[in-house]
């Protein structure tokens, strides 16, 4: 059965000068939402062995290794991302690691949450048009994660690198947010590139 990318850009689209930000859908990103007790060392250890990284427990932090990233969303809630094709395997391994008796929950949300990648020298300027967070490079550093609003959409914002952000948004809002980002980038220029 054919799947459908939301912003299936086969071609490169340039808005304005195209130099300020690069915008792309990370359509091949798999997402798993994990719930569990951060006080329970055995849980953190079991998950850590599967992902080969320690789940971040500090609020607003993340952990990354290779193509796996764990984003802190709440004290007992993480978003784990990996290549979409690896989701079935990771889901299975994580369920095994959790085991039948431990209280934890895993849900796949690859389809429910869409990830946009926003990069370029004006990425922070564009975000600041709709996001009330303090996005100063000293405050929102690479690795930081925060739930917030972007325009009228609820988002999870992850700073990948000084000029590179991932924006997670519920699928049904993605069209609105994409249009908003293209519009907000108008004065800096937007390059829409297929991921």
């Amino acid at each position, binding site marked *: *059965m*054919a*799947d*459908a*990318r939301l912003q299936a850009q086969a071609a490169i689209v340039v808005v*304005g000068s195209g130099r300020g930000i690069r915008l792309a859908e990370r359509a091949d990103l798999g997402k798993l*939402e994990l*719930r569990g007790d951060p006080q329970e060392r055995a849980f953190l250890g079991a998950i850590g062995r599967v992902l080969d990284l320690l789940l971040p427990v500090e609020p607003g932090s993340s952990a990354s290794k290779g193509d796996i990233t764990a984003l802190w969303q709440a004290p*007992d809630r993480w978003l784990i991302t990996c290549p979409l094709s690896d989701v079935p395997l990771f889901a299975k391994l994580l369920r095994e690691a959790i085991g039948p008796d431990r*209280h*934890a*929950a895993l*849900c*796949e*949300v*690859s*389809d*429910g*949450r869409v990830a946009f990648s926003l990069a370029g020298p004006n990425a922070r300027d564009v975000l*600041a*048009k*709709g*996001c*009330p*967070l*303090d996005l*100063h490079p000293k*405050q929102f550093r690479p690795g930081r994660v925060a739930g917030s609003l972007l*325009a*009228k*959409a609820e988002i999870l914002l992850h700073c990948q690198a000084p000029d590179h952000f991932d924006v997670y948004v*519920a*699928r*049904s*809002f993605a*069209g*609105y*947010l994409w*249009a*908003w980002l293209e*519009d*907000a980038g*108008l*004065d800096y220029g937007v390059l829409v590139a297929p991921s």
Partner: protein
Amino acid sequence: MSAQPNRLAAGGQVERGRPLAFTFNGRRYQGLAGDSLASALLANDVHLVGRSFKYHRPRGILSAGAEEPTGLVQLGEGGRTEPNLRTTQIELYDGLVATSQNCWPGVQLDLGALNNLASPLLPAGFYYKTFMWPPAFWQPVYERLIRRAAGLGRAPVLPDPDRYEHRHAHCDVLVVGGGPAGLMAGLAAARSGARVILADEQPALGGALLAEPAAHPGQAWRQEVLAELAGFEDTRLLPRTTAFAYYDHNYLCLVERVTDHLGPAAPPQLPRQRLWKVRARQVVLATGAIERPLAFAQNDRPGIMLAGAVRRYLHGYGVRPGRRAVVFTNNDSAYATALDLAEAGAEVTVVDLRPQAEGALPAAAAQAGIACRAGHGIVATEGGQRVKAVICARLSADGTRIEGARERIPADLVCVSGGWNPTIHLHSQSRGRPVYDPERGCFLPGLPVQAERSAGACAGEFGLAACLAAGAAAGAAAAEAAGFRASPPDWPAELASPAEAPARLLWQLPAAKPEARAKQFVDLQNDVTAADIRLALREGYASIEHVKRYTTTGMGTDQGKTSNVVALGIVAELTGQPIGELGVTTFRPPYTPVPFGAIVGRNCGPLFEPVRRTPMDAWHEAAGAVFEAVGQWRRPWYYPRPGESMATAVAREVTATRAAIGLLDASTLGKIDLQGPDTAEFLNRIYSNGWSKLEVGRCRYGLMLGEDGMVFDDGVTARLGEQHFLMSTTSGGAARVLAWLEEWLQTEWPELKVYCTSVTEQWATLSLSGPRTRELVALLAPEFDLDPQHFPHMSVREGTIDGVPARLFRISFTGELGYEIQVPARYGLALWARCMALGEPFGLTPFGTEAMHVLRAEKGYIIVGQETDGTTTPGDLGLDRLVGRKKPDFLGKRSLARADMGRADRKQLVGLLPRASEDLLEEGAQLVADPNQTPPMAMIGHVTSSYRSPSLGRSFALAMVQGGRARLGETLFVPMPDRMVAVTVTEPVFVDPEGERLHG
């Protein structure tokens, strides 16, 4: 095109080599780049700009800044036109078009000026006294008249073609005002490494220095500071930016005029204006001071200006607004204007209210040979559309009477100074309470309530050196408070201003004419005179808030920036109360008017509100669906075929579903994944019905009640595993229900081990209903065993379709045999298309929300929010079987035990059949038992849902009726404006009451 008679040969920050053409009232003029519209008009000797609000008196330009009450124009044309703009703050651009306001046919001959002749009949409170009688006249006559007369300019009627943006910003120190104190504060903070935003409403930073000559040492200092500030990476300078609102938690809103000064030449990708939403750790207010006029007789003629503003025109723009000037003052500062005017070649006379003028500036003026009438006041002025002369006279020692002979001094310019009011608006907005300082004769900022401090003239520190010192200290203190190590910067010693002698405060001045004709204006915009204020007091309005409202002092677009304190002073003198005890009226945002466009930002047009789309939205759109907004979701309402009306399309969709198969996009329904050993117990508490005995693989319909026992949400929840459930909620209730579940888990029942995760958007949901559904599902999902023995109604199975994970539910919201298929959202569109292709031989018909409503209503299935309204219990809906009274507890249980819940006359769900089968009731219509009552009738219920039923071949309705279940068979009546509709009360289930179709 005319020459610029008032432009000086040199001076000002204007670009002499860049002339700009503009049009005022249809006449073409020339100004220079760097001019404000006001300075360009004055350069052309145009003082008459508009007509006053009430009396239509000729009015000119009073000031050079934000306080301008009268020099207002309608700027631009078509969709870009904007009313009530201050000429003093409009930067001139080539091709600018402006017109006068509040006059007809023109500003020079204005018929409204007849009001002026009648002015003795139009005192304060005229409206309240006149437009009272007869009451029937109020709306059709008076309101129309008043509305026509009200306002100054005209609101645009075309859409605004410009772009506006919002921008969030955070900083350690926000400095409002770029004058000497603000620049110093910004420098102190920036040097400490703090993140600084420095905003100033003017195009150039410098504040009061902009009114100083080019040779003033402050100019070089200003350039040096600006250059240094520009070098800090974390300092943002925002000229052309007004901080207009100060909210809680140091949240301030600023409006930046990004391209206003470019006019139509502005680049299209830039916003016209930008609204900054700033969170500042510390705020330094360096907002300066606004000069106060004096309330002398006929003080409103064009050509009468504030003394400080005249200096600004001289030195900032190279414009000398008149040749024969009288400077009327109660303090030293206006002597600087006298000196500069004389220097610029004007003939100058000073009239000083003080018996002696002995400061350094008066001494310099005397030395320059400028005539001074000390102890005098202006008691009248002459002139029509421009001041021609003033009449001055010696005043008695107490200032209340004219003593000496009257002297007529010809003048085409009168420069007035009644002292200075610190600009405390933002401090007041931040909840600070200003205090009156009798020594300085002005209100000063009180104790800070938020993390803010005032520095410079806005704190009553009026000399240049005092401003620099205060700014340096405030900037350093703010940076320290924000966690930085800071020290106050130094400044060149030559930056000082002469010491000034105290002012003489005389709020009421004697006039040559009797009170009613003296025209001593206090509020130049609203035409409020000193006599109006006296009248208000005579009529018993003692509180300053009442005086303000009765006379409308300070209520115009300028919010009384030049009039409030004068009005207070007059009230204080008349009542004998100290000004400080009268209090000052509270300032509220905005400081100056903000265009709606800036407030709206990009939240307009297609970005006005998010439109949530389901995974199958593209198919619906291609199929020509008409959409309905369900909250932010857009859902197909119905799918009309060419030429079909809505009624025909809906009837076709309903009939096809009952006869063959219908397909509904149900992806918007909320889905919450619940996992954990205590989930069944949690559901027992959250839902009114029982969940412990639900087997794995089975589903149950549940009602969720609030603590008040009222239905709050409903939906089907499936048990996917021993500890794993999937809850569905209403489309609109998804977020609310998740928050509700989390609230109970986190605050009341932390001992329950349950994790809730929203998966609404993860799954696309296709809902199939109709007698042939099983045949189609068998083709679509061959891996599932559909045998009703193994897969009965209200069950769920997990598996795959074409290798894609899928969940298949056997549930129904139509009363027909029904299956719901969920696949990951990215496959929704493809599965829908395949479903349509495979379903064609069966007569598969997509149906929208309208057909869904008809189908469910025919079965008496409720919709939360349609049949219920927050006062509806399960019992009211006939759903008592869903109340697990034997359960130890559940949300709402205690409330259901209240006596009121058992009343026999509660409104209960029933069906209605209109007597005439074609009669369609209106949803929301009221029901009465006796049609012959005289209104107001006793209303015993209301229609909640009403449709035409293709299945019944007639109209029907659902309703909530008092004691409804005991009324089955009764006839009730629906009074409509034009008729009385008789209806029969029935059971609420109209189709297949035995439920045979469901279980087939």
